[in-house]
């Protein structure tokens, strides 16, 4: 059952001469929630953005090593196809302000020029919005602009936009750090639902969140993957002293 979906082999990432992710080897099992935590500047976001090749969009950024998605090396694929298979949700909600809520959900199809019959579009929109528990709230205002929603709703709209493409993996870059506590708990509940169909990799610097939502946790420090284990194991009995120090709040 526990088959690996994403596997990084000796993955290194750089900003110019700055070596930010060092030799990361990690196996991510299918239909799990993986939390990636660590102090600011430890390379966790860079690693996450490396998985769907968003890292190299930044001028001067380079990467080496392998990231296997099933049997294919992401580094050898064209980024456009990688990003269709690996969806991403960002720190701040970023719905397209020029599109309606409806068009935001199917933006991946619409903006890519993929034509779908109306019934199919309706189905995808309802299905995706239901998945993120937003359908009931917005079903009467689908023609309104995405920016009309509250911050938490916008973030769920962005998750729906990623889910609509039926990716295999969903990446979350501190998805709740710009949200209020109530919206945060709504989004966290979503993770449990979403993992039935997708594999979720979540970067967070909120340890409680990592403990609450994840099956496995990876701890990054100074660009290295220090420890990677079952979340329960990690929080109760960390093997590395650096992990222990981080969890007990000796540095952050």
């Amino acid at each position, binding site marked *: 059952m526990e088959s690996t979906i994403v596997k990084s082999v000796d993955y290194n990432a750089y900003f110019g001469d700055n070596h930010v992710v060092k030799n990361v080897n990690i196996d991510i099992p299918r239909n799990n929630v993986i939390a990636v935590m660590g102090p600011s500047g430890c390379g966790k976001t860079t690693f996450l953005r490396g998985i769907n090749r*968003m890292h190299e969009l930044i001028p001067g950024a380079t990467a080496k090593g392998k990231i296997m998605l099933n049997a294919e090396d992401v580094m050898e694929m064209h980024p456009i*196809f990688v*990003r269709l298979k690996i969806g*991403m949700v960002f720190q701040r909600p970023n719905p*397209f*302000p020029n599109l309606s809520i409806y068009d935001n959900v199917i933006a*991946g199809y619409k903006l890519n020029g993929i034509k779908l019959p109306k019934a199919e579009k309706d189905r995808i929109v309802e299905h995706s919005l239901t998945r993120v528990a937003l359908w009931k709230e917005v079903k009467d205002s689908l023609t309104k602009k995405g920016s009309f929603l509250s911050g938490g709703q916008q973030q769920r709209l962005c998750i729906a936009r990623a889910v609509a493409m039926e990716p295999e993996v969903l990446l979350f870059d501190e998805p709740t750090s710009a949200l209020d506590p109530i919206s945060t708990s709504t989004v966290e509940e979503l993770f449990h639902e979403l993992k039935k169909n997708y594999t979720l990799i979540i970067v967070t610097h909120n340890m409680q969140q990592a403990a609450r939502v994840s099956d496995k946790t990876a701890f990054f420090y100074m660009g290295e993957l220090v420890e990677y284990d079952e979340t329960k194991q990690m929080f109760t009995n960390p093997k590395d002293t650096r992990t222990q120090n981080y969890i007990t709040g000796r540095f952050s």
Partner: protein
Amino acid sequence: MISMKNNVKYRIGKSTGFQALTILLACSCVVPLIFILIYILQAGLTKINWHFLTNLPKPVGESGGGIANALLGSIIIILVASVIAIPFGILCGIYLSENRKSRLAYWSRLCVDILQGVPSIVIGIVAYFWLVKPLGGFSAISGSVALAIMMLPIIIRSTEETLKLLPDSLREAGFALGLPFHRVVLKVIVPCGISGILSGVMLSVARIAGETAPLLFTAFGNPYMSFNLLKPMQSLPLLIFNYATSPYNDWHDLAWGASCILLIWVLALNIFTKLMTRKWKVQL
């Protein structure tokens, strides 16, 4: 204590005086515009009627006549200039905003800034040597090219500045959905910045509508109706220049009327741009 009190009064007085000065100077900038408007409307409005807009100028000695050829000529020359400058300008602006740090962007940005400062008469001379001489004569198209060169920096800089202000998260949202670069630009970035881009285009049109110098030795002017882009063509600024400096009263009237039309045109474009920018602005 008393001296302190006086001191406070003096400081408040100084502050009020300074404020009054800024208000006075702000008002005084409006004065020349209002005078120009009143003066030209007074002199020109009475000359404008249907006959004026639809007839050709009459030869010296005959009264009446209109500016139909100049009006149409101006519209044609500006349309052709826009067709040349708008795609060039917008694409260049997109390049500058999406490749901020590249060497090419640095140099082309510098060139655009310098181009903006080049006197219009110099651009006219360049167009004369590039187009008029090789083509063997004055032509409307060479005037359009000269005006297009004048439009470019305005369109480029306003496109660049508008698109730069859009948050990077918007670009990332597009890339994360697997959009290729050209779709991120055309489907996400440009639609979100469309109001700023269009306002730059409109302002550049308003800017060149009254340009005379580049047209003097390119489009040259023509007392008759002409639709041939390869032949000389009349335009409003040329008509004003030629007729206002002539010794005939009838021609002065035509020049006043044409000035009035040009002024209304530029004013309307500016107001339209303001309204449109507000209406089409995408709320981020």
